C-alpha cells in the first residue's frame, strides 16, 4: 500500500534501466532556423553614458569631442558691504573671468605622455544634447539641423593647455572676462556651450567633468571678489566616423547602441537530407520539447571596424524575446533567455582571429517547441511564445565601442547547437 521513499532500493548498474536513451548533438545552420535578420542602431544616446571622450586621429582617423553646457550664472552674489557684518545680495556683480576646470579620467584612459587639450566657445546656436552627432546639431524626427562645420560647428578659442597624467588629474583653461560677461548675460544655456577637443594625435582620453570657476567682483564692495563654481547642465560627446550598422554583421553595444533582431523558426522535424539528419540515429525525426536538453546560439566574433571602436572593457550581451514583433526595433523586450548575460573580455574583437561564443537558450527553445507535458499534473493551455529575439548590450549605452559578430550569410554565420536525448519513452514492463 503506502511506501516511504527515503531509502529506495537503488541499483548502480545502468543495464537495469529499462529505457534505451541516446543523446546526440545537432548543429542547425542559421538558414534552417533564423528568419528576418535585422540590425538597428540608435538606441539611447551618448549623453546617457555619463562619460566623455576626446580623441584626435586615434587608431586611424577617429576623432571625438566633448560638448558641454555651463550652468546659468547666479542672479546675485552675497557680499558684506564695507563696515557691515551681514551680507546683502549684489546682482550687479562684474565677472572678471575664470577657469574652465576639466577633470580627466585617470583610471581607464591614461596617455603615456603629456597631451594638449583645447577649449572653445561654441557659436553654433541651437544644438541638442541627446541627439547631437559629428555632422548634426539636432537629429530628431522632423527637426534635423546640421552644424555649420562638422564636429560641433565653429568655435571661438578659449585657450589650450597641456595635461600630463603623471602630474595632475585636472586641466585648467583660463576664461577671459569678455567670455564670462557673455555667459552671465546669456539667457539660454546653449549660449554657454563649450567644446573640448584633443590636439595630440593617437590618444583617446576620458573626461569625468567640466565646470566653470568664475571670479565675480562685487559692485557693493569692489574690494570683494567671489569665486562661484558653475557645473555643466548637459554634456555629450560626438565622434567621427560613425560606423552605423550593416545587415551582414551583428553589432552589440555602442553609443548610441546597436542591436540585432531575428526570428527563430525551428523545424517541426528533421527531414532526410538536412544537415542535422546526419547526426541523428534515425531520420526523419520530430523535434519536440522533451527531447531538447540544451540549446545554444553559437556565434563567431569578428574584428571591429574601424578599430577605434574595439571595446577596451568587458562587453556584455543579452538575448531577449521581442514581445511585439510588429513594433521592432522599439518593441518591449521580455526576460533574458540565458541564465546570465554573456560577457566578452577585452580583446576578443581585436584584429587577429575569431572567438566562438555561445549563448545558452535552452528554456527559450523548449518553450518555442511547446509547453511541458506533466503526466502527473493537470493539463495546461498552450500559448504562443514570442519567436523574435533581440541581441543587445544589457546596459545601453555602455561605451561608444561595440562588439561585432559574424552575421547570417557570412562564412562564419551563427548556428544553433542542440543536444537532444531520444528514447522510445518510458514503458510498462
Amino acid at each position, binding site marked *: 500500500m503506502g511506501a*516511504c521513499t*527515503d531509502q529506495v532500493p537503488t541499483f548502480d548498474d*545502468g543495464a*537495469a534501466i529499462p529505457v534505451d536513451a541516446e543523446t546526440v548533438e545537432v548543429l542547425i545552420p542559421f538558414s534552417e532556423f533564423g528568419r528576418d535578420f535585422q540590425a538597428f542602431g540608435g538606441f539611447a544616446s551618448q549623453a546617457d553614458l555619463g562619460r566623455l571622450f576626446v580623441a584626435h586621429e586615434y587608431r586611424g582617423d577617429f576623432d571625438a569631442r566633448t560638448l558641454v553646457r555651463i550652468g546659468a550664472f547666479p542672479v546675485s552674489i552675497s557680499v558684506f558691504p564695507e563696515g557691515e557684518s551681514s551680507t546683502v545680495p549684489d546682482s550687479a556683480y562684474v565677472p572678471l573671468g575664470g577657469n574652465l576646470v576639466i577633470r580627466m579620467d585617470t583610471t581607464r584612459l591614461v596617455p603615456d605622455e603629456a597631451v594638449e587639450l583645447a577649449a572653445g566657445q561654441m557659436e553654433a546656436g541651437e544644438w541638442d544634447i541627446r541627439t547631437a552627432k559629428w555632422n548634426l546639431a539636432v537629429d530628431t524626427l522632423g527637426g534635423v539641423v546640421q552644424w555649420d562645420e562638422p564636429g560641433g560647428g565653429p568655435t571661438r578659442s578659449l585657450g589650450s593647455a597641456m595635461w600630463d597624467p603623471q602630474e595632475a588629474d585636472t586641466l585648467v583653461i583660463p576664461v577671459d572676462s569678455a567670455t564670462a560677461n557673455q555667459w552671465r548675460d546669456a539667457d539660454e544655456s546653449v549660449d554657454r556651450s563649450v567644446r573640448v577637443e584633443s590636439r595630440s594625435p593617437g590618444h583617446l582620453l576620458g573626461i569625468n567633468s567640466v565646470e566653470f570657476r568664475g571670479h565675480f567682483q562685487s559692485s557693493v564692495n569692489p574690494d570683494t571678489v567671489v569665486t562661484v563654481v558653475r557645473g555643466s547642465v548637459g554634456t555629450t560627446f560626438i565622434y567621427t566616423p560613425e560606423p552605423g550598422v550593416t545587415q551582414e554583421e551583428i553589432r552589440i553595444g555602442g553609443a548610441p547602441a546597436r542591436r540585432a533582431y531575428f526570428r527563430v523558426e525551428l523545424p517541426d522535424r528533421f527531414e532526410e537530407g538536412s544537415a542535422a539528419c546526419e547526426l541523428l540515429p534515425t531520420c526523419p525525426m520530430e523535434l519536440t520539447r522533451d527531447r531538447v536538453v540544451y540549446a545554444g546560439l553559437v556565434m563567431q566574433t569578428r574584428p571591429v571596424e574601424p578599430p577605434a571602436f574595439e571595446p577596451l572593457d568587458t562587453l556584455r550581451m543579452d538575448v531577449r524575446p521581442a514581445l511585439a514583433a510588429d513594433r521592432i526595433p522599439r518593441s518591449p523586450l521580455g526576460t533574458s533567455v540565458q541564465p546570465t548575460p554573456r560577457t566578452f573580455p577585452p580583446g576578443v574583437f581585436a584584429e587577429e582571429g575569431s572567438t566562438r561564443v555561445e549563448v545558452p537558450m535552452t528554456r527559450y527553445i523548449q518553450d518555442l517547441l511547446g509547453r511541458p507535458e506533466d503526466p502527473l499534473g493537470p*493539463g495546461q493551455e498552450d500559448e504562443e511564445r514570442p519567436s523574435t529575439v533581440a541581441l543587445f548590450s544589457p546596459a545601453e549605452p555602455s561605451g561608444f565601442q561595440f562588439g561585432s559578430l559574424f552575421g547570417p550569410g557570412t562564412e562564419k554565420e551563427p548556428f544553433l547547437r542542440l543536444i537532444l536525448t531520444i528514447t522510445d519513452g518510458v514503458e510498462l*514492463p
Partner: protein
Amino acid sequence: MITACLKPRGLKPGVRAWSSGAHVRSFGALVLILLAGSLLLPAGAGAQSLMNAGGLGLLNDPLDARSRALGSVGIGLEGWYMLATDPSAAAGLNLPSVTGTFQPSTSRVDGGARAGGTRFPTLGVSYPFGRHVFVLQFGSFLDQEWEVRTERTLNLSGQEVEAVDQFESVGGIGQARLGWATRVGEDLAVGLNVGSYTGAMERRFVRQLDPGTVGAGVEPFLNQGRWRASGLTVAAGATWQPSALVRVAASVEQAGDLTLDPVTPTPGPEKSYPMPLTLRAGGTVTLASDLRLSTGFARADWSGVDEALGGDAARDVAWGYGGGVEWVGSTILGRTAPIRLGYRHQDLPFHFQGEPATESAFSAGLSVNLADTETMPVARIEYSLERGTRDAGVFSEEYWRSTLSIRLAGG
C-alpha cells in the same frame, strides 16, 4: 492507495514505553530480544527490496503481525480475524471491529547498500449483521519502488560528456475488497470477498548532462509515465473445526487481469497482465492447553503473466509454505501475551535479473491481549519481527521486517 512516511524511529518510542511499563516474567528474555531487534532496525525501512524491480514488483501479501510471526501464508490460524487471504476467518467476529497493520522493514544486499520503507499491508473494518459479517479491507499486493542511478560517459560529436542516468519506479499495487462471511452450524464457516486492484505505477527516466562540459543552462531530460491499476479479484474460502483441537481452512482466489491504464498524457495503450489462480490451505492443531502449531501452504499459477511479460520473467507456479508455534501461557500484568515463532518460505513470482527468486524468513512475535471476550479479542496489540533472505541466482539480500498490528472491537 494509502501512503505514509513514518520512520521506524517513530515506532520505537511506543514500543519502548510499552516495554518499560511491563513487569517481565519468564518470557522477559524473549521480549528483550524482540525489542532489541526492533531497535536495531535502521531509520527508514520497508518491504523495500531490489527485487521490487523484477517483473511487476515484489509480492507483499496482506498479512498482519500474527500471521507473520507464525510463518503463515495467511490462512487457518486459530480464532477469528480479518485477512483477505482467508475470507471465512471473519465469520466469528460478532462485534464491529477494526484492524490496522504497520510494517517498517529494511533490506541489505550482500556487501551493498541498505534500503528501507514503511508499509500498511492491511487495514480492515468488520461489521456483524445477524449471523453475517461484512468486511471492508485494503491490502498490499505488489511493491514497485526502486530506482537505478548510474554515471555514464557519453560521446557527443567526439567530445566526452559525463552524464547521470536515473530511473525511478514509484508506487505499488494494492487491493480493496468487500467481504462477507458467516458460520454454518458450529463447525463450519464460509466467506467470500470481491475486490479491485488499486494504486498506480509511476516510472520516470532522467538524464542529466554535466553542465561544466555542455554549457550552462543544460536541462535534465525527463521521460515519465503514470498508469492506474484496475482489475477484479474474487476469493472464497471455508473454515472447518472438526474438534476443539483442530482447525483447518482453505481458500481459492481467482483474479482477473491486472490492467494498467495510462493516465493522460502518458502515451500508449493500456496493458493487461493475467493474475494467478491462488490456492491456500492451512490449519492449526492444539498440542497442549497453551501450545498451538499452525501450518499452511499456497500455490499460485503465474504462467499467464510470464507470457505477458515476454517469457522467462515469472514462474509458472509459485509455492509458499510455512508454519509456527504459538504459546499462549505467558502473561503481562495479568493479560494473556502469546509468544510465537515461525518460518516461512515463498517463491517470488517474478524473476530477478533472469533468475527465479525466493524469500524465506524466520520470525518471532509477541502479542498482548488487552481485552478479550469469551470468543474473540476486543483489544489486542501484536508484533512480529522477521529475519529473512531473498535469493535469485547469485544475488542475495537480507532483510529485517517488523510488523505491528492493532485490533479493536466493540459494540
